[in-house]
Structures are given as C-alpha cells and as structure tokens.
C-alpha cells in the first residue's frame, strides 16, 4: 500500500519551444519510506516535486498521474488544497519560502497548527513550543516571540521544518533542504530530518543534487538525468555499487578526505544537457566513458527487477566493471 503513487508523470513548459522537463517518471513512496531523488541541473528533479504539490509555474503542464492515498492530485485543485498543509508538508531550500518575515515565529507555527487540526490558539502555541524542542532548538520558548530574520540560516531552516510538521503530515516533501546551509550544520539538519521521520512515522520525498548529504538518511535512492529516472534502488545497495555509469560517476565525484593529495579530482566529462534537449539514443551517452554504438541510437528503457530499476544497455556490475 503506497502513500504516494506517481505514474507516467510528465512536465512540459510552453514557450518559444516546448520543453519537456520531466519525461515519464514512475515513483512510489510507502508510508514509512524515505526516498531521495538525486540529480543535477536539467534533471527535472525540482519540477517533479513542484508538479506533485501543484506548485508548477504558470506555463508548466503536468501529465500522468499523482495519487496521494488514492486521491488524484494532478489537475484537481481542491484535492491539492485540502492535502497541502494536512497530509503533505513542504520544506523549501530557503526557509524564507515557508516563513513570513514580518510575523513572529510562534504566530506562524500556531497558525499552521490551527489551520490544519482546528483547536485553540493556546493549544497550538504549546504544540509549537514542543515542536521547536523537537527540532533541537535550545530554549524553545524564546523562539516563539522572535522574528525569522533574528535567527541564523540553520536555525531558520529548523523552524521551517517545525512549521511544516505542525499539522503532522504523513508525507514530507523537501526540496534541497540543506543546500543553503553551512556544511557543519547540514549533517545535523539531515540527521534531524531522518529522526523525525522515524519518530513521527512520516514518509519523506527528498530532492537534492548532493549525494553525500543523503547517505545515511534515505532508504531508497532514485537518480534522475535529463528528465528521466536512470536508476533506483535501496540505498545500501546503491552506495556499495551503483549500476548506472552516471550514478557511479556522481558517487565518484564526491570529494573525500581519503583521496590522495594532489591527485586529479574525479569528474564526468561534458556538462548535463539543458532541459528539453532531445537525443536519439541514451541521454547520457555523450558523457559516458563506457558508451558503445548501440547507446547512440537506442534509448535504453527503465527496466525494473526485484526492488531496483535501471536504464542502461551495459550496466556496471558490483565491482564496477561491465
């Protein structure tokens, strides 16, 4: 029984040229899953998230199906409105996406709580304080009367998370939640998110460009490239040996301290294609070190077996060879 079922999702943008940002994506998130979608610019990952929550730009068109708890969300404005702030929570990259600068934090949190679950304001304020403690803000009470700009970026993001959680959503969408934060704070906030998911029995769909950040947090990883999912599998399996050359390249590209000093940094040649570029064969082929003739002409379909999905003609084996 899945909480979120995405089938054949496409997102197109109208303009001088029609651009397809998301191309036939299938995804499912169970009630206690933490799924991370990893991709770079042009991968369509952000548009995927925005389409699911009805936040696409005015000239974006979403096709396919997005079902939350069996209810179709695409094209059904009231369904989305009901679900937003109740069943679904959203954390943005920049906390200012969720926090109004001219209102006190306590008021904002309480409002989020009352709007979703009814009840008195006083009860909501008490709940807000508890939630602030939950997100590990020391001396939570003082934060109720503060304004967002009085806090540092990391603290603001914690408050934004608290706000998103006030209505006790069953699914949390997070769009690059730690990208704008300092490295020393990123790990803390990611760990916090993981903990909250477990404690509150919440599912999470996280979108990020940073593989290093989702390690130790996600149950499943899906990698997107040029609008498509190219690989999806359980996290443990993914980190010990991804099947798609792009995933392997991404994993390699994360610089670590074990690297030999002075050695070349690992990278993938070329640049990610701009949204809407159409190629006859595999979209990753121009950058793939293992590409062969077939890859240039034939677009590999996403094959699903067991719990993993892979779109590659010549996938890597566990020890990195083909």
């Amino acid at each position, binding site marked *: 029984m899945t909480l979120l079922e995405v089938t054949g999702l496409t997102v197109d943008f109208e303009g001088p040229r029609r651009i397809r940002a998301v191309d036939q994506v299938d995804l499912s998130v169970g009630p206690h899953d933490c799924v991370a979608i990893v991709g*770079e610019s042009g991968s369509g990952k952000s548009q995927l998230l925005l389409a699911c929550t009805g936040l696409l730009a005015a000239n974006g068109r979403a096709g396919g199906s997005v079902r939350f708890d069996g209810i179709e969300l695409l094209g059904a404005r009231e369904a989305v409105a009901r679900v937003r702030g109740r069943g679904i929570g959203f954390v943005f990259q920049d906390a200012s996406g969720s926090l109004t600068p001219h209102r006190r934090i306590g008021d904002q949190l309480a409002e989020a709580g009352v709007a979703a679950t009814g009840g008195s304001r006083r009860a909501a304020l008490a709940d807000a304080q508890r939630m602030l403690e939950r997100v*590990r*803000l020391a001396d939570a009470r003082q934060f109720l009367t503060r304004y967002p700009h009085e806090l*540092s970026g990391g603290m603001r993001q914690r408050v934004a998370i608290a706000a998103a959680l006030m209505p006790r959503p069953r699914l949390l969408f997070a769009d690059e939640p730690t990208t704008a934060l*300092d490295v020393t704070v990123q790990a803390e906030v990611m760990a916090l998110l993981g903990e909250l998911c477990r404690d509150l029995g919440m599912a999470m769909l996280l979108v990020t460009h940073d593989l290093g950040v989702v390690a130790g947090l996600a149950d499943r990883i899906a990698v997107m490239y040029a609008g498509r999912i190219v690989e999806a599998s359980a996290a443990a399996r993914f980190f010990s040996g991804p099947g798609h050359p792009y995933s392997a390249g991404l994993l390699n*590209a994360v610089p*670590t301290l074990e690297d030999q000093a002075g050695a070349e940094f690992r990278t993938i040649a070329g640049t990610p294609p701009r949204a809407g570029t159409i190629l006859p064969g595999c979209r990753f082929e121009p950058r793939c070190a293992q590409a062969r003739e077939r890859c240039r002409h034939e677009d590999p379909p996403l094959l699903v077996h067991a719990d993993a999905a892979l779109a590659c003609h010549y996938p890597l084996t566990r020890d990195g060879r083909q």
Partner: protein
Amino acid sequence: MSELLELRAVTVRFAAQGRASDARTITAVDDVSFGLATGEMLGLVGESGCGKSTLGRAILRLVPLAAGEIHWQGRRIDDLDRRRFRNLRRELQLVFQDPHASLDPRMTIGESVAEPLRALAPGLSRSQRTERAAALLDEVGLAPELADRYPHQFSGGQLQRAVIARALIVDPRLVVCDEPVSALDMSVQGQIVNLLARIRRERGLASLFISHNLAVVAGLCERVMVMYVGRIVEIAARASLVPAPLHPYTRMLLDAVPRLDALARRRTATAGRAVNYTTVSAARGCAFAARCPHALGICHAERPVLQPLGQGRLVACHRASEWPGGLRKL
C-alpha cells in the same frame, strides 16, 4: 621576505544592516595575517559569513581596509592611489563564484574575456586582443568559435571556464579563486578544479583558493588556512591538518566531510543543540567558544591569538597544546 603577498593585521568592517537604532558594525575580517609565496597554492576554508570572500575581495581592493597592511613583493599596496593600483591589477586577478553573475549578460564571451586587456594592456590593437582571447579560450578548453555567443547560451561549467580565461588573459602572478566551483553541478566541479590545478602548474601561478568545501581544498592546496567569524583559527600544511587538526573547529569541519565508508551507514542525529551565534562577532572571548565541546572559562573571557606550534603550524586556541597529536574524530 620571499613572500609574494603578505597580509598584516588586516581588518575589514561593514555597517550592519537592520534597524536604524542598532548602528552596529560587523567585523567581517578580524586581524588577519598570513603570507603567500610565489607559485604557492594556499587554501582558505570556512563557512558562510566567516569573511573569507571579503578577505579575497579586500586583497583585490574591492572593499576598503579598516586596519592593517597588504604587501606585494615587499612593497605596501593598500595605500596606493587608484591609478598606481590599477597598474598592479595586471598581477592580481580574481575568479568569481557565480559565472552567471560575473559575466555581463550583454557582452559576448569573447568580449568579456578580452576586456581586461583594454585597460591593462593598452598597447594591443583590437585584433590582437581578439587573438589573445581566442588563445585563452582554447587554453581553458572552450572552442574559440564560442567567443561570439552570449552567456545565457552556456552551461555553468563552460561559463566558469570563460571566467578563468578572463582572469588569466593579463598574465597575473596571483589569482584569488573565490568559491570557483560552489555554484556548479557536482559532476562538473572536478573538471574546473583540475583545470585550475593544471593551469597553476603550467604557469607557475600563486593562488589563494577560497572554499567552504574542505575536501576540495585539502585535495588541491599544499597549505590550508581555516577561518571562523572573521578570524584565522588554524594554518597548517595539508599533510598535517587532515590527520591531526589542532583547532576544534577544524575538527568539526573535517567531521562534516562525507566519508566513503560511512556512506552506507545510517547517521545518528548529533547531540548538539543549535546555539544562537548571531551575535558572536562581538564576543569578547574566543568566537568559537559557544559551540566548542572543549571550551573552558578562559575561552569565554580571553580571545586566543594565532600561536606557532612548530613545523609551520599556527593555531588560535587556548588549549591547543593539550593535544599535540591532533584532535580525534568526535
């Protein structure tokens, strides 16, 4: 001294924004001193707001100094008049963080790359400038035919190559790289870092590499400086900094770098509670004391000074001598 660039007690202050009633100044760079030798790749690492970018900009005179001196090849340059400093710009260049912002959207790539030559190499004719620009584009791995295109037609990685070309076209001796790869995709960052390393080797350039990513800095630079809230807290060779850091903040930064073996293991939430450190820059004692697991009374009362601890290492910590073998991972 054989130092190419030397900073002595450099301080940069800004008027704080906010309500008119708090006329506060923020000390973005606080009493910073260090030297950079010819051909050396020196890393400067720290998080947002620590002042590292401001420091880089101060060296290029994009912001004024509130105190201190900057010396270039033994001569003082921070008090030069505008015209004399402009002549110096030939030797000192800067690679900016966001290529979409640092290139004029209304100029072609070729024009942007050639622009510094107009003021800094006035003897060249227009066709000579175009030729030089084409040569530089080639050196950074961009096809010279792309010179007539506009920035919005390129990806971030390609644009950053153009930015590097622009910085190199006047043949500088020192290039300050301010977070040159932070705005780029992960899979592309390595390309640009490798490019910078190669160019530096081939041209014998000195470089100040500023970044918040310690893994990149450690892989690229022989010597590393760590900065926190405007102050330098540790300076050491990479070979000693990474295995045996002496400052608790350095330890924290090292711990935040993802490790291959830990990637598969589930992380547990750290016990630390978030502390309000927005007012730390005015703190009397050590700026890091509020977050430091090893802080003592003296740390909150007295500001530690950068002390040499043998083998070229410098640390600003009252307790650093207590762990000569470096701090272990928390």
